[in-house]
């Protein structure tokens, strides 16, 4: 594992949030405003988008990437680079307590990266293709991810993670025999998901306000994943498989019993009835008609994503000297990059502005 993974940093004292939160608030003030996004959507071509973005925080990364060509792909990479730089900057200036909390919450990006490498290796993609899809914003640095993507097989990836003594190697090693026997990638992914939720919940143990807030946020993330699984199971034929094997422990509202009930349902109305006493009732209700019209589970995915983003933003409206400000900023930044990527892709293929606006997550 590269030495960059464990960042050398001069951290403020354990619970001093004054300095880091002030910096994060300063960075937050430079997030792009809705009016700017609207202007960007009106751009006629990529040139217009590049000109607008060159006046923002994204300019250094764009300058570097555009040397390789003025394409959608290069802009996409520049946006990703900026996100990585921002996350790394925040992690380098936060205090010890928030580093611990963010380590647990941002672990999902490590999880995402490891899954990407495993999927890539499973489908025999090239190292370059795999690397371009990864975002090194958590414990694993870009050098580590490059090293992982250079492995020749899934087993090679798991062995490398074991050598680095990363926690995610444990579930992968345990699930490897089943994967080798069945060739089913879902076995590894499910093992990783379950391990992550337990690992993160363990790291967020504690009685402090910040730990409670982070636990609640992690619980919301797990709930949304479980609910999405339930929606996917609505029309799926599981055969003799037990739906509970897809359940991730650690959610706030979606318990094992609720998951079992939801997974056994076949109609979206039934699901809504069961969920209406939870905070997820309203987002599900809002898109239920859209689901009936389109028949696509992606409307629920989008609704739950929006809900999660709203929770993340709400975390930043509480204690001004707490970790919520930092969590909210990181999620806002990730959301901004996602929105910009949608606009860049939309403009490059001539998507109507209204259609683009529907795709953006605006909270």
């Amino acid at each position, binding site marked *: 594992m590269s030495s960059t993974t464990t960042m050398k940093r001069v951290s*403020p*004292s*354990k*619970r*001093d949030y*004054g*300095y*880091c*939160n*002030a*910096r994060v*608030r*300063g*960075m937050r*003030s*430079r997030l792009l405003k809705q009016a700017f996004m609207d202007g960007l959507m009106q751009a006629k071509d990529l040139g217009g988008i590049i000109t607008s973005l060159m006046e923002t925080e994204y300019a250094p990364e764009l300058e570097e990437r555009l040397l390789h060509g003025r394409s959608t792909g290069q802009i996409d990479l520049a946006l990703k680079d900026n996100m990585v730089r921002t996350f790394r900057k925040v992690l380098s200036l936060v205090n010890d307590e928030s580093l611990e909390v963010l380590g647990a919450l941002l672990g999902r990006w490590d999880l995402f990266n490891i899954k990407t490498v495993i999927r890539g290796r499973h489908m025999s993609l090239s190292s370059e293709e795999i690397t371009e899809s990864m975002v090194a914003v958590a414990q694993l640095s870009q050098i580590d991810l490059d090293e992982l993507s250079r492995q020749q097989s899934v087993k090679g990836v798991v062995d490398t993670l074991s050598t680095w003594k990363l926690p995610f190697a444990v579930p992968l090693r345990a699930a490897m025999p089943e994967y080798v026997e069945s060739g089913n990638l879902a076995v590894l992914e499910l093992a990783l998901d379950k391990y992550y939720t337990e690992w993160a919940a363990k790291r967020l143990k504690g009685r402090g306000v910040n730990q409670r807030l982070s636990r609640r946020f992690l619980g919301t993330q797990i709930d949304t994943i479980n609910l999405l699984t339930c929606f996917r199971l609505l029309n799926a034929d599981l055969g003799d498989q037990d739906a509970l094997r897809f359940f991730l422990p650690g959610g706030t509202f979606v318990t094992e019993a609720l998951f079992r009930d939801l997974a056994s349902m076949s109609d979206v109305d039934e699901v809504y009835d069961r969920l209406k006493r939870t905070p997820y009732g309203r987002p599900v209700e809002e898109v239920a008609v859209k689901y009936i019209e389109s028949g696509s589970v992606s409307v629920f995915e989008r609704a739950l994503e929006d809900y999660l983003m709203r929770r993340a933003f709400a975390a930043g409206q509480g204690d001004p000297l707490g970790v919520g400000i930092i969590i909210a900023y990181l999620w806002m930044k990730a959301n901004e990059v996602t929105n910009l990527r949608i606009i860049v892709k939309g403009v490059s293929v001539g998507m109507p502005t209204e259609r683009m606006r529907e795709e953006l997550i605006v909270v």
Partner: protein
Amino acid sequence: MIDNKLARKVFGSAFVATMVVPAMAFAQAAEAEGAAATVDYRVGVAKAIAAGASMSVSALAAGYAQAKIGSAGAGTLAERPEVATNIIVLQALPEIIALLGFVIAFMIGTA
């Protein structure tokens, strides 16, 4: 959180400044004036202790507030240098606490 060692040193110094120094000074004065001035001496010591407490506690409070504002201000300036004037004003505001402490100490001393 204030570092424990630092806190002990700061509060120790404040205690010395508040209790011991005025007491020693007045003790010397009292010795010179003799036993007839015992009552005046006690009132004087109490005044000195009260004035010392007023000054030192308000100075400590101002210092604590400035430390917090200072670290947040440094963070803000690192990201947004254009708000330097506001930060300097905010940094100076807690001085009022120390000034009020001084005024009260003065009033106690002259009463």
